């Protein structure tokens, strides 16, 4: 990944106040402080960055506004808050999709049987017949809002299955095997590859979870390195991350897509500057780093710094809201736009100030 520093802007002075995974992830993903009694599925929650950006996109018919890969995030079996549509409503919940290839991350990842799997097991002609039959049956049904919403997603799923660009993108077997090898035969790499293919097929926003799906008390291949931090990074996490991210940046660049594609690296918080007795590093939101590439961001720069002990920002301290505002600016979205929830309450998209990274 070092070879791609010319494309990266690394922000080293982020900070927030929430050291729990649920609260930290919510803060980082929504740029708002978590409410008390935070729950993942609460419609009063703030939308995730992916959901909010997707709110301003206008994809082709049959194309989801945003997709998440390859599973939900959990903390010890509890669904993690912050990656949903929140008050934007169900239309802007990013659609969860299963990555169809690659060795899994070690540890626990939870599939729910609700992930979209576009491998069609029925013959296409039979699906078309069934769809025609269903349409006849439905003519007599009323026009309730919930029903229409479900129908919208069902139509989208059918369109995706029946020969759309999304189905084509989902079929990783169509990719040049050499390109697949470049990303690595691991769900981390194949998810990055699928993300590239989905954006090429017109999906405006794709989010990839780059680790095991459940933190499982720090066990397994995730970034919660309370024990054996250095060995875990060196042997388990970084080989997959380094290879898949390098491949993604190389691939976007050679296809001429990096200028119009913004790559955003997010995390819940940083890790303590002090190493604990288990050679681990614990939760630390007081200063941490994130990175951006492509999408008009000037590469080869660092912004801000931490102090000599890595305890606090030393220069250009900034917040998740500032980072989000930077993303909105890169995406051409006015982050002061006012949106309304289903009760017509007004909300401003983002309260931060864009960082000077362009």
């Amino acid at each position, binding site marked *: 990944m070092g070879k791609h520093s010319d494309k990266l802007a690394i922000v080293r002075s982020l900070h927030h106040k929430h050291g729990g995974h649920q609260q930290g992830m919510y803060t980082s993903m929504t740029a708002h402080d978590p409410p008390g009694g935070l729950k993942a599925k609460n419609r009063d929650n703030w939308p995730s960055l992916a959901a909010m950006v997707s709110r301003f996109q206008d994809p082709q018919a049959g194309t989801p506004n945003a997709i998440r890969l390859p599973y939900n995030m959990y903390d010890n079996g509890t669904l993690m808050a912050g990656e949903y549509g929140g008050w934007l409503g169900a239309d802007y919940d990013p659609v969860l999709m299963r990555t169809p290839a690659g060795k899994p991350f*070690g540890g626990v990842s939870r599939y729910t049987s609700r992930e979209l799997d576009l491998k069609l097991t029925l013959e296409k002609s039979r699906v078309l017949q069934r769809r025609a039959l269903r349409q006849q049956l439905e003519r007599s049904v009323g026009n309730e809002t919930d029903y229409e919403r479900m129908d919208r997603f069902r139509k989208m799923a059918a369109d995706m299955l029946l020969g759309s660009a999304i189905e084509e993108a989902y079929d990783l077997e169509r990719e040049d095997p050499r390109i697949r090898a470049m990303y690595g035969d691991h769900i981390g790499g194949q998810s990055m590859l699928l993300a590239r293919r989905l954006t090429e097929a017109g999906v405006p926003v794709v989010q990839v979870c780059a680790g095991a799906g459940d933190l499982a008390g720090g066990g397994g291949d995730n970034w919660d390195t309370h024990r054996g931090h250095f060995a875990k990074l060196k042997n388990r996490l970084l080989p997959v991350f380094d290879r898949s991210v390098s491949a993604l940046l190389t691939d976007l660049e050679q296809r001429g897509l990096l200028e119009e594609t913004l790559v955003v690296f997010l995390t819940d918080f940083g890790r303590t500057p002090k190493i604990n007795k288990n050679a681990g590093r614990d939760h630390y939101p007081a200063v941490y780093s994130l990175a951006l590439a492509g999408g008009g961001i000037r590469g080869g720069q660092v912004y801000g710094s931490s102090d000599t002990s890595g305890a606090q920002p030393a220069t250009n301290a900034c917040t998740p809201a500032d980072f989000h505002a930077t993303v909105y600016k890169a995406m051409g979205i006015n982050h002061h736009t006012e949106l309304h929830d289903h009760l017509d309450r007004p909300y401003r998209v983002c309260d931060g100030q864009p960082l000077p990274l362009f």
Partner: protein
Amino acid sequence: MNRTRYLLLALLIQLPAVSFADDQDTIASIRKVGGTVRVLEKGWEVEFHLSGRSLTDDQLIHVAQLNGVTSLNLKRTKITSEGLLHLKGMTSLQLLHLELTAVDDQGMQHLAGLKDLKYLNLYGTEITDKTLVQLVGLKNLQRLYVWQTGVTDEGVTKLKKQLPKLQVMRGVDLNKIAADFPPEKPAELPTVSLKLIETTNAAEAPRSTGGDNIEVVFQNKSARPVKLVWVGYDGKLKLYGELAAGAMRVQNSYANNCWLITDKTDEPIGYFICGPERALAVIAE
């Protein structure tokens, strides 16, 4: 000329509906053949790469009739070098996607007058160094994409002498990738083995206690599937999935952790206690 200026003013206040009726007709024609038209800050963006891939050379005439197009995406469409003739007068173009189409050296003469062009994507086409020679007049060109084409090192060097600020993206050499990323060798089996302590009572499996990060390679040599259950630090059992008959799994774990093995109906078979190093855990019949 005044007409164009009026249109641009309309664009600035983001009211494309105010543009002239004949523009509306042109836009309707573009949409009819699968194109999308959007208003950008400085002009129109026209795209065919998603729903307009059946676009042919003749249909490009509709795009040529729209004044002030700054961005045009023809990726994966059916256009050829002949169609590029229509682009000849589109001098406001700044960004042009022609990748993965049938265009070749023959069509490039038509691009020579596009003086504002900053971005030109020709990856995955039949072009060669003969194309590069024809691009030397595009003084504003900043990025040129020629991955998977017939362009050579020599051709690029010559072009860069004429346009020193131009970035030419050559991409990776696909034939070299196989050498750079050889298929991973299957991990060697650990030499240390853990002993299965047999029990039919799950309560006999002790709680895990903490230790260094290690790997356990579970190998199910029995003829039936088994379940891998981690005994938590609090004594709670956590299912880590099934291991089919004959299957193997490399599992991340820690020294002093306890793994309970059960059959498919959750009846305990026995448990393993991890040592301080990478180890093999065999479930025999």
